[in-house]
């Protein structure tokens, strides 16, 4: 399985995943890769996620959407704590990507959420991982199995490729 997530200069996120599935799959088996919310999800209010691994478990947990929703809710919680609201741009669209870190949503929060959801998936017996990109530029990985190749590039940190 291969996947990619990105945020562009406008703060818009996108996710995509592509796969051949499981070796020797039968009976029309479908894993999580084409299932929106399980293997792929993107929402400017939270993040973009692409997953790889034991698809049945990613579907049951709804991994990609779960990570995105938790990030969105945590950001909302931080806003409420600060008694603030997200400013709107000239088209009336909330500028999440500009103001998220301003209200304390850091890379460590994103990592904690992604690790938590992967941990939940693992607790059911699944294995694999995700890549995540947020509207404010955070990129991260969370994997619980070895043999996963990944790469990241950004306007601020250059590019690197690694194997988990």
């Amino acid at each position, binding site marked *: *399985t*291969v*996947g*990619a*997530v*990105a*945020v*562009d*200069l*406008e703060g*818009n*996120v*996108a*996710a*995509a*995943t*592509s*796969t*051949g*599935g*499981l*070796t*020797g*799959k*039968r009976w*029309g088996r*479908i*894993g999580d*890769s*084409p*299932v*929106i919310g399980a293997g*792929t*999800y*993107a*929402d*400017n209010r939270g993040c973009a996620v692409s997953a*790889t691994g*034991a698809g049945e478990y990613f579907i049951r947990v709804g991994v990609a959407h779960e990570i995105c929703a938790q990030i969105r809710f945590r950001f909302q919680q931080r806003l409420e704590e600060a008694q603030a609201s997200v400013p709107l741009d000239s088209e009336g669209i909330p500028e999440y990507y500009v103001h998220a870190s301003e209200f304390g949503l850091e890379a460590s929060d994103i990592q904690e959420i992604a690790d938590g959801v992967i941990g939940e998936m693992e607790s059911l017996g699944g294995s694999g991982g995700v*890549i*995540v*990109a947020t*509207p404010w*530029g955070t*990129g*991260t*990985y969370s994997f619980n199995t*070895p*043999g*996963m*190749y*990944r*790469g*990241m*590039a*950004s*306007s601020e940190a250059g*590019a690197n*490729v690694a*194997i988990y």
Partner: protein
Amino acid sequence: GRWTLVIHGGAGVIERDRLTAQQDADIRAALSHALETGSAVLRDGGSSLDAVEAAIRELEDDPHFNAGRGAVFTYDGAIEHDASIMDGSTRAAGAITGTSHTRHPVTLARRVMENSPHVFLRGLGADQFSVEQGLEQVENSWFETEERRRQLDEMLAREAEGLSAYDVDLKYG
């Protein structure tokens, strides 16, 4: 503004120490190239949607990865692809499953998102939609590699010993 691109690619091995130096170098080179292709889109002010599609199209063409050319075999010895894409600015999404002839399944998923009223197409219908969209078609055999054929043969042999396909496949990423 900032841009960021993250990619992953299962290469069909479970641990680093099972890789040859050449395999490792080839896989890293392929990922680096895909990363640069997507980065160039973002660096030039392009959209995140275009960047993820461009990066994945490269990985689909590379036989090291379980996608596009180099995808694993089904039980019946064919190759069937799944793909999806989603735009975070609109929450528009497109997905396909069980296609057999589209060279770049991620592009077909994007066409479902942008040129159909639907989100998810499957099998022969998705193949038909792909042709109608004018996407590049190839014979199913074009996707085959000797290594994936060997992995299917191994899986079938081990299944005969009592292991399930699922147990055997996990090592293929």
